[in-house]
């Protein structure tokens, strides 16, 4: 168990391309931190730097209070779960679980005990003598997890461990990883590009973009108060509507609430915060035409075209909508649900 | 050049791992090759006491030598004939095997084993069949009114080495053609069949174009084989005779250097042969590079 601390971490490739631009991040003992962002944002590189698989160009990484910059992966006492699992194909499941312990010279009796325990926890005891190719995708995923937990390392590093599974299995394994991490209390860093996975797993969420951290916080904080246009667009599904203030003000009968800070030129509103029908005083009242309805079961996503606005707005309507396509629709944007942003800085005001 | 995303940080280990291979390459490949280049510019006096640097004299003498030009010409004829026959026959056999399912595998087994017959042994087998006094084929030809004696007839000697060399190479080409044919997606042939193309039309319009990478590869390999790997065939059958008619380049290097002890000329011949191999290898490698993307 250990805290992980990143101070001014940078990564520059020999060719001169800089992919990580000075990251400061403190991960508490036992915490599960999720790094999320679009592909190429540097999240995997950062994880691999923590693991010791990439060199650190500048700054320091410490695990459990000790700087590990120049240490081999094996000396950092971390375990990693890879996207393609990276199970040793010629070894049995037991061989895979044992390998790291054997290399560390763990006594035989203890190896056996730990392997048995890990296999029991992950319900893979009956597969111990099989080869990885004889297992299903979900079972391989469990073996990869098992290989991490038998080592009882200071930290788990997960590199998109669920992306090779189908949607249903992914949901199950997500819950299982969460439960396992809670019960073991091992500090974990989890990389994913899937914002739903990120939201549901994380104690704290780190949104990355272009080698920078955009925002760090609890998933609900990020959802409720995105610090930048990038985070606003990335977190939440369907994504937040971002409206141009000038275009909005040009619409007939629209006045913006006074409460918006000076310099607001973009306002955001979550699709589920929009109210259908009449408005309370101070709300923005709009009307438009329904272009498309996506029924997703308990709710419906409406794509509504408002004359004068560039993009169709997305509205989440609870229950099954009575609306038909091409119908016209009145709806209100509640004043207290608006997120003010500056276009120039991309930041929240 | 490609490596892994992460690499081991050791500084000296890779040199240690490469050392045996590099040592052997340097001592037995690079060094002799440089020696050949050096001696090709020198003349050694008859007693081997003194060598004189003579620039390109060995080369100019060689290229003016009718015997060498004859060997060049013979090599060309030989290489073209072997390549055409060995590739033609094996393509027919491969196409036939590719049409069959289970029995195809039995035929494959029956066709591939000559790969393991050494060229010199292949030469002896064919020499035995064409032996003027007891050979079965010379007997059959005799019955048909053809007098066979490859010891005196230059054309017959050439036919003999071409047949022996092609016979050995068929199995190799066959395997590559079969692999090439199997990599032509069945769906393409099926689509053409639905479009109304018969089996022969499908073969010419679908299979042959898609097989062209294999064909090109084999073309180079076969030329290479005919030029350099057939030493044993020649040595076992004609030893370059009669009257130089089967004295191909690779045999001449050996004969001039080892039997004739003409070091300078043999070295110049070696260098020219190396240039030919280098051209062939570069052509082949560029082609491979394009296909596999190194």
């Amino acid at each position: 168990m250990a805290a992980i601390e990143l101070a001014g971490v940078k990564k520059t490739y020999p060719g001169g391309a800089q992919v990580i631009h000075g990251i400061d991040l403190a991960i508490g003992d036992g915490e599960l931190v999720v790094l999320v962002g679009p592909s190429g944002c540097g999240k995997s590189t950062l994880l691999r730097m923590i693991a010791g698989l990439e060199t650190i160009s500048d700054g320091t990484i410490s695990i459990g209070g000790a700087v590990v910059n120049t240490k081999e992966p094996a000396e950092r006492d971390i375990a990693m779960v890879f996207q393609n699992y990276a199970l040793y194909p010629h070894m049995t499941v037991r061989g895979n679980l044992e390998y790291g312990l054997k290399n560390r010279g763990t006594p035989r009796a203890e190896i056996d005990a730990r392997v048995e325990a890990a296999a029991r926890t992950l319900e893979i005891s009956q597969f111990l003598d099989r080869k990885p190719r004889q297992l299903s995708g979900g079972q391989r995923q469990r073996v990869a997890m098992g290989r991490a937990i038998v080592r009882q390392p200071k930290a788990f590093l997960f590199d998109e461990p669920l992306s090779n599974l189908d949607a249903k299995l992914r949901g199950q394994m997500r819950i299982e990883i969460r439960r396992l991490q809670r019960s073991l209390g091992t500090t974990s860093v989890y990389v994913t590009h899937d914002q739903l996975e990120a939201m549901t797993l994380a104690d704290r969420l780190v949104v990355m973009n272009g080698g920078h951290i955009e925002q760090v916080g609890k998933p609900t904080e990020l959802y409720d108060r995105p610090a930048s246009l990038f985070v606003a667009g990335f977190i939440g599904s369907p994504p937040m509507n971002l409206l141009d203030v000038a275009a909005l003000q040009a619409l007939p009968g629209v006045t913006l609430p006074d409460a918006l800070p000076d310099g607001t030129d973009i306002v955001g509103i979550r699709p589920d915060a929009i109210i259908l029908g009449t408005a309370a005083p101070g709300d923005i009242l709009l009307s438009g035409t329904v272009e498309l309805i996506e029924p997703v079961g308990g709710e419906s996503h409406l794509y509504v075209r408002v004359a004068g606005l560039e993009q169709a707005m997305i509205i989440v309507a609870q229950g099954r909508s009575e609306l038909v396509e091409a119908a016209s629709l009145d709806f209100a944007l509640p004043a207290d649900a608006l997120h003010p942003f500056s276009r120039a800085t991309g930041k929240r005001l | 050049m490609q490596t892994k995303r992460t690499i081991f940080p050791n500084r000296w280990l890779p040199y240690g791992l490469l050392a045996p291979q590099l040592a052997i390459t340097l001592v037995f490949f690079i060094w002799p090759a440089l020696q050949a280049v050096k001696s090709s510019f020198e003349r050694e006096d008859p007693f081997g006491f003194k060598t004189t640097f003579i620039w390109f004299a060995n080369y100019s003498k060689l290229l003016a030598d009718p015997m060498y030009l004859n060997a060049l010409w013979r090599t060309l004829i030989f290489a073209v004939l072997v390549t055409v026959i060995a590739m033609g026959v094996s393509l027919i056999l491969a196409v036939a095997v590719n049409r069959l399912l289970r029995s195809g595998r039995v035929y494959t087994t029956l066709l591939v084993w000559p790969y393991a017959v050494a060229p010199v042994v292949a030469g002896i087998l064919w020499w035995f069949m064409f032996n003027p006094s007891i050979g079965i084929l010379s007997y059959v030809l005799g019955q048909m009114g053809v007098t066979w004696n490859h010891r005196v007839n230059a054309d017959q000697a050439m036919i003999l080495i071409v047949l022996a060399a092609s016979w050995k190479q068929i199995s190799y080409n066959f395997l590559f053609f079969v692999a090439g044919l199997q990599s032509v997606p069945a769906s393409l042939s099926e689509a053409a069949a639905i479009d109304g193309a018969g089996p022969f039309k499908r073969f010419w319009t679908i299979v042959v174009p898609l097989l062209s990478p294999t064909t090109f590869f084999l073309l180079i390999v076969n030329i290479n084989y005919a030029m350099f790997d057939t030493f044993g065939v020649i040595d076992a059958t004609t030893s370059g005779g009669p009257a130089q008619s089967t004295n191909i380049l690779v045999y001449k290097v050996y004969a001039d250097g080892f039997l004739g002890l003409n070091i300078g000329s043999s070295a110049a011949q070696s260098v020219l042969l190396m240039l030919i191999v280098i051209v062939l290898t570069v052509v082949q490698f560029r082609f491979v590079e394009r296909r596999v993307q190194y």
Partner: protein
Amino acid sequence: MVENRPWLNVLTHLVLVVGVIIIAFPVYLAVIASTHGPGAFLSNVVPLLPGSYMLDNYGQMLSQGMSTSGAPPLTLMLANSLVMAIVIAVAKIAISIISAYAIVYFRFPLRTLAFWIIFITLMLPVEVRIIPTFKVVADLGLLNSYAGLTIPLIASATATFLFRQFFLTVPDELMEAARVDGAGPMKFFRDILLPLSRTNMAALFVILFIYGWMQYLWPLLVTTDPKFYTVVMGIKRMAAVADADPQWNLVMAAVVLAMLPPVLIVIFMQRLFVKGLVETEK
């Protein structure tokens, strides 16, 4: 695909049967010749049906050899060929796999140069550099020795390329996982890479064994002592004598024995053989 053209199927089998006959006939003739007595080759044409001297001929060749040719018994030559083929195959695999490992899993100064030096061996077959290579071997005192027979032939660009290609297809994560699990470079090589390369090594062994067995010019140059004759070159000596003094029955017995080991390997390890052949040349 449904295709009903009986004449095409008949033609297919016809072509293949003719092909098999052409391929097999020279060897059939050799086998037949090896079962006859010396008298069978004095008449007009070689016999086409088996004779009754098979055991005599093979027995004589294996135990005494052909006295007139100055070649030793075939047992010795077969043993030499076996040693040469196995040493060449094993050593080529060994030095190729470690150099491919160095080239793929490490980055170091002069890596590209090393790669090209190895690549050059592709361009310089023994046949084109005979005399200087012979001279090096002679200067090193390796004539008439197993070392002289094998060492100059064990550098191999093709085997190195095959392993390099294979290593590049091994997922990067496997090596990363092994490093996280505490394996250093040699341990990773031994525990992970070597077991994964097993099929490739076996396939390569088949090809290289045949390569080593078929060597002719090189043993011809570096051995003058019959103790080191290999069977493929020994046969040539016998055949040269047999031309004057017809002992075709004995020569053909030797030919059959010389073909047998590599041919059996091709037939019984056909899957590995095809894999090795097609992949080394890709």
